[in-house]
């Protein structure tokens, strides 16, 4: 019997890149300037390809809405020297603000850039899956706000059965690295993204 694990499901083929999820998260959690617990990466690449006498567009362009993946093998928990990060019985990775010393090591260990340092408070902050909302039977703010219904959440195994999806899409790190609690319905062009040398187009926006 697998352990209970909350997870996000993201439909990349449906995402329009409007970033409402990003803003809803920021608004709900009252995040300071520059801090985003959820970021939308605009991945694009490719160009014109000659096909006989014709030039045709050969591109990959899609969005990825990425937050903390509440990984099953979370490197942030393993690395945290003070034990401030922990995994709950429902799989959600939480941060105890009273224990964090602001060493920022979790920022280094996380391949998704999820933990983010807040210079105002001197500690790290991260997505808590909108625990307060889940506990009263509501959905995380990012899921509720998405106008394209591209985001969903639930128990990982149940989500796999209900919606399917894969654990990794270019340019996310290999799934085996942290076993993220994330399922993605890939955009059709993502299969050729690596071959087309796609890159994050909104680099400045997602940089920290």
């Amino acid at each position, binding site marked *: 019997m697998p352990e209970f694990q909350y997870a996000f499901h993201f439909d990349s083929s449906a995402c329009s890149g409007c970033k409402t999820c990003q803003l809803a998260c920021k608004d709900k959690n009252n995040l300071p300037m520059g801090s985003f617990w959820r970021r939308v990466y605009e991945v694009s690449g490719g160009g014109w390809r000659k096909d006989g006498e014709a030039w045709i567009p050969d591109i990959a362009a899609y969005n990825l809405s990425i937050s903390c993946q509440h990984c099953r093998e979370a490197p942030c928990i393993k690395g945290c020297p003070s034990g401030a990060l922990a995994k709950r019985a429902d799989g959600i990775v939480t941060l105890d603000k009273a224990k*964090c010393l602001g060493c920022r090591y979790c920022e280094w260990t996380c391949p998704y850039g999820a933990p983010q340092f807040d210079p105002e408070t001197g500690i790290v902050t991260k997505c808590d899956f909108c625990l307060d909302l889940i506990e009263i039977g509501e959905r995380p703010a990012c899921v509720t706000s998405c106008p394209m219904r591209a985001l969903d959440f639930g128990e990982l195994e149940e989500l796999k059965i209900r919606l399917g999806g894969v654990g990794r899409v270019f340019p996310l790190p290999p799934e085996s690295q942290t076993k993220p609690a994330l399922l993605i319905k890939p955009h059709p062009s993502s299969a050729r993204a690596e071959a087309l040398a796609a890159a994050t187009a909104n680099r400045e926006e997602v940089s920290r």
Partner: protein
Amino acid sequence: MNFREWPLVLFTLLFQTAAGAAATFWALAVLGRPGASGRLPAIVIFLPAVLSAALSLFHLGRPFRAPRSILNLGRSWLSREILFLLTFKAAAAAMVLDEPLGLQAGGILRPVAALSGLACIFMMSKIYTLPAVPDWNSWRTPASFFSSAFVLGGLTAGCVIGGLKAPVLILLAAAFIFNLVFAPRFGLAGRKATPLGFRPNPAWPAIFAVRLILFAAAILFWLTALILPEAASWLEWAALSAAVISETIGRLQFYDIPLGLSPRTA
């Protein structure tokens, strides 16, 4: 160049200097070299160790919570590093007090300091060998940390007690070849724009060249000290100074790397 991590640059370099010096002095004491034991070498080990620990606090958002950093010894390399750092500092402090208090414990304290210092450098390198940071996740990280320790520690020991010209020269030459050929050239060798949006700093090759020129200057100063014994003292200190600047540039480049999905802006 990204100076944001200056506390870590100074912490790692000063601690590695102290640990390298402790290992060198211990080896020399075992070989019966005059001046390798006693209060002066102990102070030379203790001061950078204490200074490094103090500077590391500037990296923390909540420095008063620093004692909490050893609470995850079972899983965190960072906790283990701090434990060995504290062991090293305690041994170095005891070495300083050994003579005044008549403890006669130098024979035990020297290996404890040297071995805990080297163990701490190993733990330190484990902290950085992270799958999430491909530029750090290789043998180059521990190799460059130990290289810095033996270069700076060896040069410091050589300047303090003298008479180590040939062995330190060999050490410097080996480290130069390592830095030139195998290169912990963080930000240089094979680094390209990544799909995550990271773009290499165009100034890095020039900065790396300056680092190598300074390292070569350190070797030249040390070699000249070997040939001209009458000018040896200032030439040795000049060699140490050039090596310190070179290693500092290298460490700044080490920390100037992209992290995870969201590369830091410089």
